[in-house]
């Protein structure tokens, strides 16, 4: 257990995982819709507060996994209940816990039917998402990774829009199909490690043969690339985003997509470094394709949710680009960009949900010129849109800038191809903003539209706060990454010989 700093005091991580689960079970006994809403809000807020000490007590000087917990689970197969977080997962855990109360607030009036079941699904989602980011045992990880499908499926299939059946089944099939081979790869890793183990840190640096690494990498890659989603595995995303209820879209965009990129960082890079080197150029080009494809497609959308969904494909392209340039600026930028995308895109989905509650439409043309009637709303929207296109002073600027710095340090041609992505982001976000705030002389009639109420402002304000905080002073967030990212880079190493030579051929 030399990779784990055991936590002898209060078991924070287990408490964070099981608090929402217990909350969900107690919720079953709650009478009335409002009681359910209030109770879920209490549970998520308590979970969020409970997660704050993780940041305060985080040791910045070590790459070891902190707040560790270790219990034997299935001794026969050496499967353990091992939890722990390092710099890579800390921010993702905090993002999840802090976002959930806002999801509850954001669905307060949006969800009118079957409130109790909805809240149960939200809490189960929180449990499994936190489990994914904290698990240090592959089987435990897989259990959370797959269990998450059930509540997410129900969120889309029950409370979704008109094409919810199509979207939810597509989501489920895509993700499940991606992860069945992940299971085979997990078992193969176990059987090829010495001693046999499912422990993620112990699997790092095992020196597997290159052929074996290539196959394992491909199985991992398929699962994670579908989750991210990387071009060309992205087609489930717009469908799921458009049909999901607001909270579902927010969770999907802010946390679920991050599981894929987190998987790259946690598994692909350190466990299969040689394969990472081999596939790196292909993945860089796929990332560029995603950035450009997402940008161009977003530019053509009439549906606001679809626009943001395709913008996600582009943004996540930046994240995978940052991860696979394999230098510290790139990876730190990518992790920060994961958080930024969670904040900004989550906020944008909330914004779309808020006008949808008023007009029951997501059409861009239907909302032309609502700036005049909803000034507070468009103020928020403007800030989040600027953040989305990485305007200096907002959070995404820092992340995207770091990714591009890392990219140029790695290879100027690849990075240069990503630049149009930034320009495209400005184009589609300004197109959205211009229409929504001012529109044209032929604006539809908006009389009767009321501006945001206190609850909605409370939902958006924390996100805006983080947009500006990370944008103006990113150091509190970046400093937790340094040690872990550097350790990750030493684990990947830059192997001489074959793989690098191929990489040089692929990227001029």
């Amino acid at each position: 257990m030399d990779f784990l700093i055991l936590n002898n005091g209060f078991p924070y991580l287990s408490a964070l995982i099981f608090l929402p689960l217990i909350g969900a079970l107690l919720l079953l006994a709650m009478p009335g819709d409002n009681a359910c809403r209030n109770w879920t809000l209490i549970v998520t807020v308590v979970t969020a507060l409970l997660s704050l000490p993780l940041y305060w007590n985080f040791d910045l000087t070590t790459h070891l996994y902190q707040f560790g917990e270790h219990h034997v689970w299935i001794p026969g197969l050496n499967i353990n209940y091992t939890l722990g977080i390092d710099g890579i997962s800390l921010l993702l855990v905090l993002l999840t816990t802090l976002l959930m109360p806002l999801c509850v607030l954001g669905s307060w009036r949006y969800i009118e039917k079957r409130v109790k079941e909805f809240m149960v699904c939200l809490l189960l989602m929180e449990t499994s998402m936190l489990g994914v980011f904290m698990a240090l045992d592959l089987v435990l990880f897989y259990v959370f990774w797959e269990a998450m499908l059930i509540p997410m499926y129900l969120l889309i299939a029950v409370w979704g829009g008109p094409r919810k059946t199509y979207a939810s089944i597509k989501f489920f099939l895509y993700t499940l199909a991606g992860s069945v081979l992940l299971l085979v790869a997990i078992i193969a890793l176990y059987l090829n490690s010495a001693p046999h183990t499912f422990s993620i840190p112990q699997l790092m640096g095992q020196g597997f043969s290159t052929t074996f690494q290539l196959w394992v990498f491909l199985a991992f890659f398929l699962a994670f690339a579908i989750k991210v989603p990387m071009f060309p595995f992205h087609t489930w995303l717009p469908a799921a985003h458009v049909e999901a209820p607001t909270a579902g879209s927010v969770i999907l965009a802010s946390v679920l997509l991050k599981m894929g990129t987190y998987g790259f960082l946690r598994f692909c890079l350190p466990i299969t470094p040689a394969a990472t080197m081999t596939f790196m150029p292909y993945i860089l080009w796929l990332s560029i394709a995603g950035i450009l494809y997402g940008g161009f497609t977003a530019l053509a959308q009439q549906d606001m949710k679809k626009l943001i969904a395709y913008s996600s494909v582009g943004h996540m392209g930046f994240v995978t680009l940052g991860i696979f340039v394999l230098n510290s600026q790139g990876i730190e930028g990518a992790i920060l960009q994961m958080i930024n995308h969670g904040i900004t895109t989550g906020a944008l989905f909330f914004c779309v949900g808020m006008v949808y509650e008023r007009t029951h439409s997501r059409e861009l043309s239907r909302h032309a010129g609502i700036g005049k009637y909803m000034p507070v709303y468009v103020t928020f929207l403007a800030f989040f849109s600027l953040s989305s296109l990485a305007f200096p002073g907002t959070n995404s600027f820092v992340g995207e800038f770091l990714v591009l710095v890392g990219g140029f340090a790695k290879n100027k041609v690849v990075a240069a191809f990503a630049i149009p992505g930034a320009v495209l982001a400005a184009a589609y976000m300004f197109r959205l903003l211009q229409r929504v705030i001012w529109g044209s002389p032929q604006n539809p009639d908006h009389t009767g539209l009321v501006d945001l109420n206190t609850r909605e402002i409370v939902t958006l304000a924390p996100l805006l706060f983080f947009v500006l905080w990370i944008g103006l002073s990113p150091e509190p967030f970046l400093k937790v990454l340094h040690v872990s990212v550097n350790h990750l880079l030493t684990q990947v190493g830059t192997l001489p010989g074959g793989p690098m030579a191929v990489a040089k051929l692929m990227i001029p």
Partner: protein
Amino acid sequence: MNIMLFAPELFLLTGALVLFLLSLSPAGAGRARTTALVFAIGTMVSGLVFLNFEGTLFYNAYQIDFFSQLIKVILAAGLAVVLLIGRKLKGIADEVRAEYYLFLFMSTLGLMMLVSSVELLTLFIALELSSYSLYLLVPMRDDRAGSRLQMEAAVKYILFGVVATGIMLFGMSYLFGLTGTTYLGELLTRLQPIMAQPAAIVGLAMVMCGFFYKLAVFPFHFWVPDVYQGASNETTTFIASVPKIAAVALLIRMATMIAAPGGWPVVNLLVVLSVLSMFYGNLAALVQKDIKRMLGFSGIAHAGYVLLGILTLGQAGYATAMYYITGYLVMNLACFLVICAVSPKGENLQIDDLSGLHQRSPLLALTLAVGMFALAGIPPFVGFMGKFMLLANALNEGYLTLVILAAINTAISIFYYLSVVRVAYTTSPEGYPAVQVAPATKLVSVLLMLVIIAMGILPTPVLEIATSAVRVLL
């Protein structure tokens, strides 16, 4: 002869006799239900009491050990749950209820004797006792609609059953001819040196066919969809769950014989049958409208998964196969509980008949969702843990291609399980009647869900028991 060794079977036999007496009086049908339940639970309790007994009976043809006693407990527990699920016996006419329970008991008795049989003829008689009772149960369905579907099903069931039995007997004659004995223990030692001979391999494979038929392994599956559809919901609940436990137990007994060098052709046969069962079952289930038919095809696929454990011919594989089939029993019972409860008068259910179940009965909808997701192999349910163990074990033995094919099958199967959940959770209940759920059914459904989750999260105790049980065989 120590009568204690035979106690669970005797208890069940007494129950059958009481039911027979009840069937003679016209007023007996009402009392039959309670009597049956009491005796089923009593058999389970007596099985637990005599769990650790060991010994042989009937000129060494009948062996009592931990393996057989454990499976008898599972069989009796399965019977008790089936009785609880089909408490109302909606699909069976009032006047034959006592007989219905009688044959259900005789079938279970046959299965219990089957797992203790260590001699070919005893084994054959036990198997036939259980089969012939089932042949009678299928046409006993109350035919209000006049479709006479159950008659067709019964004929198919008996024809395929007789063919499978014939093949099995033929195989037994080979084994006897080669070794001059019908005792499994001696057979094992005498077969070792001649295992490479085609006659031995063919003989063993043919004996296994009888159990392939019970477990519904491709190509002995042809009866499955029609019998599942034609038999009443309660009968299908039984056929789909309890006999499969005994079939797996016997397949494990047979598999210990092919572990010899030269037994590889039988292993290859098992590999091929496993792959074919998985693909055939899952692909055919995709297009089913009738939920029982769908579960039937899904059962064929699950038989393929179980073979994955048996064909590795090791203690871990056998234990995992036992774990998986026990889990399958529970998952399947959970699904059939919902079918029996939702079907208003015992008729067949289309998948669309489950529309809006979340409003008509939230508990049943949850049970169905848990059962379906468990069958699909989604964590944290037992289906996932079982499949994970099976795949891990098979990969450990070097069956990489087989494991990948099984994993792909998981992805195929999710679609039809998911569409059942979708109908239950996302459609409107308009036009469908409300569902009345008896308190006992509620209790059973909660218990089944708890077992599904507990076995999935804490597999260790169950696996340890299964391991010590199969250790007896090796």
